[in-house]
């Protein structure tokens, strides 16, 4: 009896289940995609001056170079720490100014809050701020306001506004519109709609973005000194140029430790807030 039943179900099930046919379009799509990707790699090989053999050929040279870094020379550590502090201070002001400006600019970039003739021009302006690297802005501001940390602060500020306004507006565009409608229905003005309907929804994300930008601004600020815009970058540049690799190592260690500590602290803060 039992066997009969089993074969019965097998008979009934067999013709019904089949593998779906291969999607040819998809298979070809993948093949073409990979082909294009490899073509891109080959095309870029020469432009990027790829010479992996050089790593081996100049091996002994590099070993001598790396040896130069040890032991690190912390003789001038007070100076290094002082400059590192200035670097962080540049990042603090650059980020805070950027956040303050990115709140209104981010809202003006959001297509669910403002008409197209507002968000298009504002977005293009933000594109410009973002497209130009901090270092380029730093060189320009050194000319404008003179050598020193202020030029670096301004450079970080402008570039970060471009980045944060875009991130802020993306958060705003992803909000739930219903609470905003609820506020509007009470007879609120449009500014009040944003203050009570939009900002509470996006605040955790905004804080998270702002902290993340602070971390990357500290990293960026460590090189601003190379173009004379303040911070530890200037020292770094001098010691590398002077072949003082033991001092270079000391400065790098200070940079790595500071950046790591700030990253950890800001991550903690982010978790605490969200």
């Amino acid at each position, binding site marked *: 009896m039992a066997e009969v039943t089993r074969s019965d179900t097998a008979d009934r099930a067999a013709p019904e289940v089949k593998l779906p046919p291969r999607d040819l379009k998809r298979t070809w799509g993948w093949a073409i995609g990979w082909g294009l990707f490899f073509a891109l790699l080959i095309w870029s090989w020469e432009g990027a001056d790829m010479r992996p053999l050089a790593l081996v050929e100049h091996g002994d040279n590099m070993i001598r170079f790396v040896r130069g870094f040890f032991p690190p020379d912390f003789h001038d550590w007070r100076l290094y720490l002082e400059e590192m502090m200035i670097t962080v201070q540049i990042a603090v002001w650059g980020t805070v100014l950027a956040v303050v400006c990115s709140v209104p600019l981010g809202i003006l970039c959001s297509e669910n809050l403002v008409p197209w003739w507002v968000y298009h021009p504002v977005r293009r302006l933000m594109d410009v701020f973002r497209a130009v690297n901090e270092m380029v802005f730093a060189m320009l501001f050194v000319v404008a306001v003179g050598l020193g940390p202020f030029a670096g602060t301004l450079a970080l500020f402008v570039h970060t506004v471009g980045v944060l306004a875009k991130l802020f507006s993306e958060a705003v565009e992803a909000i739930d519109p*219903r*609470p905003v*409608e*609820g*506020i*509007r*229905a*009470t*007879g*609120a*003005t449009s*500014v*009040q709609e944003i*203050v*009570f*309907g939009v900002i*509470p*929804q996006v*605040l955790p994300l905004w804080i998270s973005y702002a902290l993340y930008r602070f971390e990357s601004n500290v990293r960026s600020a460590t090189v601003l000194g190379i173009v004379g815009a303040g911070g530890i970058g200037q020292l770094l540049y001098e010691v590398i140029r002077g072949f003082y690799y033991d001092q270079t190592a000391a400065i790098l260690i200070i940079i790595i430790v500071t950046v790591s500590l700030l990253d950890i602290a800001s991550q903690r803060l982010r978790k605490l807030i969200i």
Partner: protein
Amino acid sequence: MGAGVGMHAIEIRQLSKTFGRGSKALDGIDLTVQRGEMVGLIGASGSGKSTLIRHISGLVIGDRGGSVSVLGETVQEDGALTPEARHVRSRIGVIFQQFNLVTRLSLLTNAVLGVLGRVPAWRGALGLFTKAERLLAMQALHQVGMAEFATQRASTLSGGQQQRGAIARALVQQAEILLADEPIASLDPKSARRVMEILSHINQAFGITVVVSLHQVDYAFAYCPRTLALRDGRIVYDGPSRALTPAFLTELYGAQSEELILPGSWGQQSEQDVDTAAPVAQPVAVGSI
């Protein structure tokens, strides 16, 4: 405010709304609601209930040629909002299916936002509410039985609790008209009855005009003396809820009628409602199905 006394609560003339490819969500609506009425708005999904309510509060703008006035002030006319729309909105409380509270703010803050329409714009925008205003919000929360949850974030509350919070916000607003768009559609039966009782209480105790759209006909029977039925954007019935016949409802809802007015559930539900609230006479339809 004085100008509005004696005016109709809601007056709609020839309101139509055409969406995208020429489909009419509202088709020549004419409607007058008197002050102090409690009106149920029924109809199948897509019949235009929500659209009508959103037009009354000026959240959506209708086609040219129609007009909506509320309490003697014009909200929209000829396809455009009037300058007084914001002022009228402050006199209309709106309750939504999804509550539309700001979930990250406390219930008390949500409720106090009801004053935004009548305090100076800068003070509202900065969130500087006076002690009297907060107290008013607290009283409103007490009236809907939510005072003990005042400090909780709205996101921590159940649907029924959030909806009561939304009603409190409308009370703080001192709205003279309450528009409720499917306020109970996402609630369990017990919370749904509680919300309908509060709406009915507000209507009777404070004389606030209530227009409530409902998916389930039995709630209209139990709580609303007057019912409007919509189909394809037209009003197909306007009269006492008591006079609605099962035959008419079956025709109104067509294929959906079984789900919404099942004979069994109807009788049961109505009896329960009548037990608890009983603002309306026993529906004539009970037993005859």
